[in-house]
């Protein structure tokens, strides 16, 4: 046996054990990403992909197609509104839920489990239930809205682009379908925020709050000055994670509205370029634009809200 030290052997064993993981990540994530960069600059369509290679002519025309396609800019706005709206809503509901379930009560364990259902249930199933519930013809929500809340007529939550609400004489235009998918997003992902916030809440030592209570701090003051600062880092992390996930979300919007009625988010556009127009190049270019916008926002976010670097092991 050669003079390999224990340290060298450990290094070799470590690399050997991690290599299958690296291989999969390299093959299924890293290389495809690099390839997207190439595809985005080549005119490749689905029909001729079998005989095109890396050395196809490079061109910018995919980006021209993407930027010139109708509704490109409004779709970016929609994607942002959807991502931010869904993130904020899910975190607020998650926070309220975590605060309500903080102290033990009968049935808390059951409710805690039940509240995770929207998050763990298959997206296809929950999207269809929502679709049926919100239907203007046989949906339970419209039925009860008309019967009990005195709505003039059923609301087409998922197919109506805009509606005018008159509140106190003001006519306000509301993007109905977009708001509906944002609410769906809040409903589906609040359990994620709830779990993380609850875990953090339960790790806050009780004596801090107790001391503040003795000093005469009211519940809102204790929340504002003691609990909330403790939650800031986990909320910042959640905001970032959820924003990234929502920004690229495809399934939810695709299943609920198919991207119609003003819910034309960028990921659905990528899908449409690929499957409706068979345009691989334009789909890659649109995906790259999506990723670029995301990166710009992430960098901005990290510059302003960067949580203090918490080094782990």
């Amino acid at each position: 046996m050669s003079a390999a030290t224990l340290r060298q052997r450990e290094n070799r064993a470590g690399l050997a054990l991690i290599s299958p993981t690296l291989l999969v990540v390299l093959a299924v994530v890293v290389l495809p990403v690099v390839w997207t960069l190439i595809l985005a600059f080549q005119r490749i369509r689905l029909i001729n992909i079998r005989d095109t290679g890396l050395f196809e002519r490079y061109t910018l025309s995919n980006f021209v197609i993407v930027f010139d396609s109708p509704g490109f800019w409004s779709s970016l706005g929609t994607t942002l509104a959807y991502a931010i709206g869904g993130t904020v809503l899910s975190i607020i509901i998650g926070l309220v839920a975590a605060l309500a379930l903080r102290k033990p009560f009968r049935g808390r364990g059951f409710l805690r489990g039940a509240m995770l259902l929207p998050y763990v249930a298959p997206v296809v199933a929950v999207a269809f239930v929502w679709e049926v519930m919100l239907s203007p013809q046989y949906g339970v929500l419209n039925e009860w809205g008309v019967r009990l809340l005195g709505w003039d007529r059923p609301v087409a939550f998922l197919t109506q682009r805009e509606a005018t609400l008159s509140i106190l004489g003001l006519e306000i235009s509301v993007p109905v379908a977009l708001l509906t998918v944002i609410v769906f997003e809040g409903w589906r992902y609040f359990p994620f925020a709830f779990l993380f916030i609850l875990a953090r809440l339960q790790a806050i030592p009780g004596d801090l709050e107790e001391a503040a209570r003795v000093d005469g701090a009211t519940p809102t003051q204790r929340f504002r000055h003691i609990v909330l600062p403790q939650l800031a880092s986990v909320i910042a992390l959640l905001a970032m994670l959820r924003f990234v996930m929502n920004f690229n979300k495809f399934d939810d919007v695709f299943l609920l509205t198919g991207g119609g009625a003003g819910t034309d988010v960028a990921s659905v556009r990528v899908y449409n370029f690929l499957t409706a127009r068979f345009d691989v190049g334009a789909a890659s270019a649109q995906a790259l634009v999506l990723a670029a916008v995301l990166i710009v926002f992430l960098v901005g976010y990290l510059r302003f809200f960067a949580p203090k670097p918490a080094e782990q092991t």
Partner: protein
Amino acid sequence: MNRDAFETRLFAVLRWVVIVVLALVTLFPFYYMVLLSVRPVENLLADPGRLWVGLSEWTGRTYQEVLGSPEAGGQGMLDLLTNSALVSLGTVVLTLLISIPGAYAVSRLRFAGRTQIHFLFLAVYMFPAIVLAVPLFVLFTKLGLRDSLPGLMIVYIAQTLPVSIYMLRTYLSSVPVSIEEAALIDGCSRWQVMWRVTMPLAVPAIMANALYVFMVAWNEFLFALLFLAEDRSNWTVSLGLAQLAGGIEVPKTVLMAGSVVLTVPIVILFYAAERMLTEGLTSGADKG
């Protein structure tokens, strides 16, 4: 009444309001799903607002239609269930085979690049699936893997690996190293130590992990849609249900029966393992 007493009383009431509203909002859609799946569609159209189903109208025909084979006039969801189960179980086994050694290496061994590897995992975890979808679609078409379940499994493995390794690593770092050192001194090899000593101790974490991977694979929709849409015999339940909804006129009650069939396995697994899962996923969160 001073402000403190007022607030205390206000929040005591609000807390229960919130609890009741949350319970309703989260559970109602699932109740409604089950309710519609056993109601005849004529009754739904006649009285959409009803929130219970009388024993006399109760029907199982919706389930017959959704599960039955196409020859018998059904939607053939039973075959799709098999596909989903195969893909999910295959993904679980393969992911664990890759992630267990990986997690062991990351938590126990000092190797070149160990500290940087977390960034790679975070990047993979956060990386938009939709950006990967296009090149993988092209690549798998070229390789002839696209219309196949193994092709789908490869994608799922890559998507679940980072979280899987993260969860296992967190657990492993709570298992004392001294036992392993003792085994090493007694002459076990690294490989033996890992499989004979460490892994038996990590069984709870591995189970939780298996469930997490299973759920991701079972629920996944985008890649199933992109890869398998052309060949009906390969469809997963999620995809089959989506195609069912988009295709010819199918009663919504049948669609709800299909949704119940799709959801029930996940709910059962989730309750069987809820505690393990939630602790595994959030155990890093309380470090601030």
